[in-house]
């Protein structure tokens, strides 16, 4: 589904990714862990199409297409979704209005008919129940005045409504208390299917207690230094990253 080969990327003059390789197949859940400043969020942003990064080498193929040449909205319409680490506030824009515009833009792209307001609202309400979200968050402006936890939950709601093929979760677990974490994990597990893949960026093992990953990768210095299964995350929790950095330096 997603194939990243030898990816190099800079922001301004600083090289952040230095030859990153990653293969994600449909049905898989991958977790990317790593120390601060290792390039985790940069990777998520580049995959979603954020401007300001220069890809200097390598390639990213998504569903057989060159992802890097697609504008962000087209990536979204092709089924890629990024749950933001810091979701932005958009004053005056109704939360459900944005969600409906997004949903219908994606449907239109697939050649499907747009859903009317009544059916759409029914769909959204069903998804909200899954993640125990208050109904009044629909009528509020996008993320405006939301608490940190509400913002993250709103990201998961959008993901559940838009039903992406590939979901990128950028530190969705940080800043959540344990109850909120469980609810968010439930939402992510709901999305799990043989046709979909999830790429989670996280600092903490605790999210992986609720979502069992098929693969765990350690990203440091702009490259994947080590890959393994769920046990690698447990080992990282115990031993930190230094031993991997040391191993890689050898």
């Amino acid at each position, binding site marked *: 589904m997603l194939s990243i080969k030898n990816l190099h990327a800079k922001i301004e003059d600083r090289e952040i990714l230095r030859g990153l390789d990653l293969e994600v197949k449909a049905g898989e859940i991958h977790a990317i862990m790593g120390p601060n400043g290792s390039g985790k969020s940069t990777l998520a942003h580049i995959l*979603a*199409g*954020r*401007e*300001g990064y220069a890809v200097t080498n390598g390639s990213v193929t998504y569903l057989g297409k060159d992802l890097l040449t697609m*504008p*962000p*909205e087209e*990536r*979204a*319409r092709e089924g890629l*979704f*990024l749950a*933001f680490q810091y*979701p*932005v506030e*958009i*004053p*005056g*824009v*109704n939360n459900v*209005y*944005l*969600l409906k*515009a*997004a*949903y219908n*833009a*994606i449907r239109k*792209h697939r050649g499907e008919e747009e859903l009317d307001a009544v059916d759409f609202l029914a769909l959204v309400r069903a998804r909200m129940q899954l993640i125990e979200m208050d109904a009044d968050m629909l009528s509020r*402006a996008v993320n405006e005045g939301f608490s940190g936890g509400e913002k993250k939950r709103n990201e998961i709601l*959008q993901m559940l409504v*838009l039903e992406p093929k590939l979901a990128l979760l950028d530190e969705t677990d940080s800043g959540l208390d344990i109850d909120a974490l469980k609810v968010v994990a439930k939402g992510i597990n709901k999305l799990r299917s043989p046709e979909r893949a999830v790429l989670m960026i996280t600092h903490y093992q605790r999210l992986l207690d609720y979502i069992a990953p098929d693969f765990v990768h350690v990203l440091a210095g702009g490259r994947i230094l080590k890959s393994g299964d769920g046990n690698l995350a447990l080992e990282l929790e115990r031993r930190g990253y230094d031993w991997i950095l040391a191993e890689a330096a050898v």
Partner: protein
Amino acid sequence: MNEAAPAVTQASDVENLVRGEYRHGFVTDIEADTVAPGLNEDVIRLISAKKYEPQFMLEWRLKAFRHWLTLQEPHWAHVRHAPIDYQSISYYSAPKSKQNAPRSLDEVDPKLLETYEKLGVPLHERAKLAGVAVDAVFDSVSVATTFRKKLAEAGIIFCAFSEAVKSYPELVEKYLGSVVPYSDNFFATLNSAVFTDGSFVFVPKGVRCPLELSTYFRINAANTGQFERTLIIAEEDAHVSYLEGCTAPMRDENQLHAAVVELIALEGAQIKYSTVQNWYPGDANGVGGIYNFVTKRGECRGADSRISWTQVETGSAITWKYPSVLLRGDNSIGEFYSVAVANHYQQADTGTKMIHIGRNTRSTIVSKGISAGHGQNSYRGLVKVLAKAENARNYTQCDSLLMSDRCGAHTFPYMEVKNPTAKVEHEATTSKISDDQLFYCRSRGVATEDAVNMIVSGFCKDVFKELPMEFAVEAQRLLAVTLEGAVG
């Protein structure tokens, strides 16, 4: 002809004057009846005579003109323009100047037609808006007739200003200039001397106007753009909502517009005045465009009255207007809701004045300024609480949205409070439409233009919700068209 001429009131004198002047430069042809450029007392007498005005009207005009001669053009607004040559303007043109008008839609600027298309203006109305020289371009007569009948049944007068001067001179004489005196300011004084037409509305005591009054339905509305005069009177407990303008850009050859609008609300009366202003803003390089120098003021004359201004200003090269409310009656309420856009090289200096005179008077100001391209947008507002205005309240919210790196947003709030019981609040924000917001929407599958529209509409929401429903939808679409490709 610059010396004071004898008062001209009889038709034969008028004809002589016209004919006499013709040799000296009056232009007359079959379609147009245009006075040669220039302004003097004879021109004013001619305008008045052409309209068969009563003596008081002519005298008022002349008083205004004589006062105007003593005034200097004001330059305190945050706008720049080349000097205006007031002697090069033709102050009378009737009934319609069609010499330069396009003969068919094929001759109309395709860009203008494209805009109509985007705004969803019905095909049969496009020709009229574009100023195509065809009579009865669309059949509005039946609509207008039904409309007038309904109003007449309620005892409401809604007609062209010139008609009101002839048919209801006592009302005009009583109220004209009672809110904006002829000596008010340079442009209002000029208007008082030379205004050609406009709207007149009178809603009698206790009547709630059953319809939204719109210039769209007014007969004889054509070609009153340059020096328009509007007077709206709501008697005790009367309610009226008035819509001015049109979302579609209108063709107009005149560069200077100096309109005056006066609103009078007696005890318990409510007047809601909504404007969508979309005059030609000039091209992307700042060439051409209308100078829109308008004086709009309402007076809450009676207790418990209410005046509300809502404006969406997207057009004109320069906008200079401050719809204001004099809160004279106790417990009266003044409101001002504004969206002003300055794109390309447009300049907007707009805001309001809320003058609290009576007790327990309240005012609300919500101003949303959008700057794009090289546009300069200024909010200028005055909240004044006089000594006797016990318990006056004002809330002002003033937000600016920047859409490029070359535009500007400026805020000039003035407050003068002379009563210690007053509460005056002012909130202001300036934000740039952020890459983060755009990227967020796009990453959800929403196209850039749609995302911009969404964010801008969200910014203007507090104002749009004050507009009559149908107008609000049009205004939103207008904003989208105005700001097309503006992010950068």
